[in-house]
């Protein structure tokens, strides 16, 4: 009884939403020995891990450590030099993503996956309205009812705390934080199961960052999303992720539960990284 209560206390105390444990569960994504070389230079080398449904994994490391290369390889935006990435499709079958046809890959990218870019301009269409940005994925999967599309778009804008009357404004007229939230709405509208995020809070000031993180945490918990987040900000990893991968020079230095890695870093490099955080 006391042990249970303790566990409850612990669960409440942790910032990251709790995941139910299920022994029958199969991984959502398997990354096996993924390497990417740019000529003779290493992008990332021999990376392997599993990602489970609803799990948030943070990839941290200093700039140039291969985080983004790895993310791009996994999300098929880059083709790795070697290695394998398997994904569990909605029908339960495990498919190798680089063996999917271009059409299947695109369908996966706009239904089951999402990609949130560091720079919102890369992930948004800057010259079409916010409503159309959110609605694009719906139209791409064959929705042809204007009223419904607009309603869904408007609901999503509300969810990401953008005023409904901004629905016909172009993202150019939005602030950095709003653009980032719009990008998130655009990705989540088709109910994906896996989201890739590349420094989602990069370039935002701290108060805006805090709101965005709050929003992301809420959405991830509510929708049961799995996510891979690339960040150099250890605080972001602490707030959002269940598990962490620390990278240096294209290789994995340490992996483990986020709290364990941050509170009890084993590898010297991780210790250095954590002790480098500025204390105010």
């Amino acid at each position, binding site marked *: 009884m006391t042990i249970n209560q303790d566990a409850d206390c612990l669960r409440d105390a942790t910032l990251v939403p709790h995941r139910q444990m299920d022994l029958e569960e199969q991984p959502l994504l398997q990354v096996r020995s993924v390497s990417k070389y740019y000529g003779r230079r290493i992008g990332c080398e021999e990376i392997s891990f599993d990602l489970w449904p609803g799990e948030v994994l943070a990839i941290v490391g200093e700039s140039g450590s291969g985080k983004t290369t790895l993310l791009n390889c996994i999300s098929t935006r880059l083709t790795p030099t070697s290695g394998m990435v398997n994904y569990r499709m909605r029908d339960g079958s495990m498919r190798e993503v680089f063996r999917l046809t271009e059409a299947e890959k695109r369908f996966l990218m706009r239904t089951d996956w999402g990609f949130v870019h560091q720079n919102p301009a890369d992930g948004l269409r800057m010259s079409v*309205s916010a*409503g159309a940005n959110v*609605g694009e994925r*719906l*139209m791409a999967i064959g929705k042809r*009812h204007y*009223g419904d599309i607009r309603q869904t778009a408007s609901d999503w804008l509300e969810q990401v705390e953008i005023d409904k009357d901004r629905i016909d404004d172009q993202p150019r007229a939005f602030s950095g934080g709003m653009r980032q939230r719009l990008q998130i709405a655009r990705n989540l509208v088709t109910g994906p199961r896996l989201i890739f995020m590349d420094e989602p809070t990069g370039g935002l000031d701290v108060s805006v960052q805090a709101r965005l993180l709050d929003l992301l945490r809420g959405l991830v918990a509510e929708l049961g999303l799995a996510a891979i987040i690339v960040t150099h900000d250890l605080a972001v990893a602490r707030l959002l992720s269940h598990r962490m991968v620390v990278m240096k020079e294209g290789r994995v230095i340490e992996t483990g539960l986020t709290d364990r890695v941050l509170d009890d870093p084993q590898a010297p490099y991780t210790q250095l990284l954590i002790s480098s955080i500025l204390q105010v």
Partner: protein
Amino acid sequence: MTMTTALCDDMSATDNIARYNFAYLDEQTKRMIRRAILKGIAIPGYQVPFASREMPMPYGWGTGGVQVTASIIGPDDILKVIDQGADDTTNAVSIRAFFAKMAEVETTTDTTKASIIQTRHRIPETKLEEGQIIVFQVPIPEPLRFLEPRETETRKMHAVEDYGLMHVKLYEDIAQKGHIATNYAYPVKVKGRYIMDPSPTPKFDNPKMHMSEALQLYGAGREMRIYAIPPHTEVVSLDFEDYPFEVQTFKEPCALCGGTGVYLDEVILDDAGGHMFVCSDSNYCEDRRANGHRGALSPDILDEDTAEQQREGTDR
């Protein structure tokens, strides 16, 4: 060399200076273009690249259409050329004269008589029939161009049928203007597969493309693309369930022939806001007038008073 001489003799050469080949283009070029056309017909709506040639006219004046016409025309063909529906505009007149000289073919303004109709911006009002070919001059063949500027990407989008973006444009129209405001170059889906730009014809003409008995060929010279819609092919204009596709309607009939249900041009008559609407298809209008149809501003039924007012208006 001997062949060239023979050809010159055949074509009743009056001097020894080398002449142009039949229909201007050389035979190898025509063969290359015909191959592109055949491929286009085999894959309705697909843009086939071809090695577009320099023509003795500027890009944007129909170099694509002229090359297609030159490749399919034979000595027995009867050619009609229209520009914005009219047979008597500069572009139409000069292209007609070009083929009258270079291919020595018979030309006509009569839609029913023509075997090949080269057009810019219109499909004739008179229904085209089996055996006729309509050749469109296309400035920008890529319907996704202004939505996605990368040609590498748009080609991929066509290849994997990734067409969500096209509806984004229509969505934007409705969001901004309350209705689908695209009035020309209105995107269509051909045979349930490729999305195609019907060239800058008004959307009024889109329904005429559907199940047309005539072969429709599209040539874009500057962009080096040819595409086609074979006869009896399904052509659907894109729309939303709650905002269905509809064509332009006109409140008044043609002022000259009284025709309704046709595409009208507005003609400004004076500086005082005077204007009239007349058929854009000049041949159709003339035909109707020859058959006794009259509109409100036909010269022979304008009574004295109206004529008077008209003159005053013009004088001012």
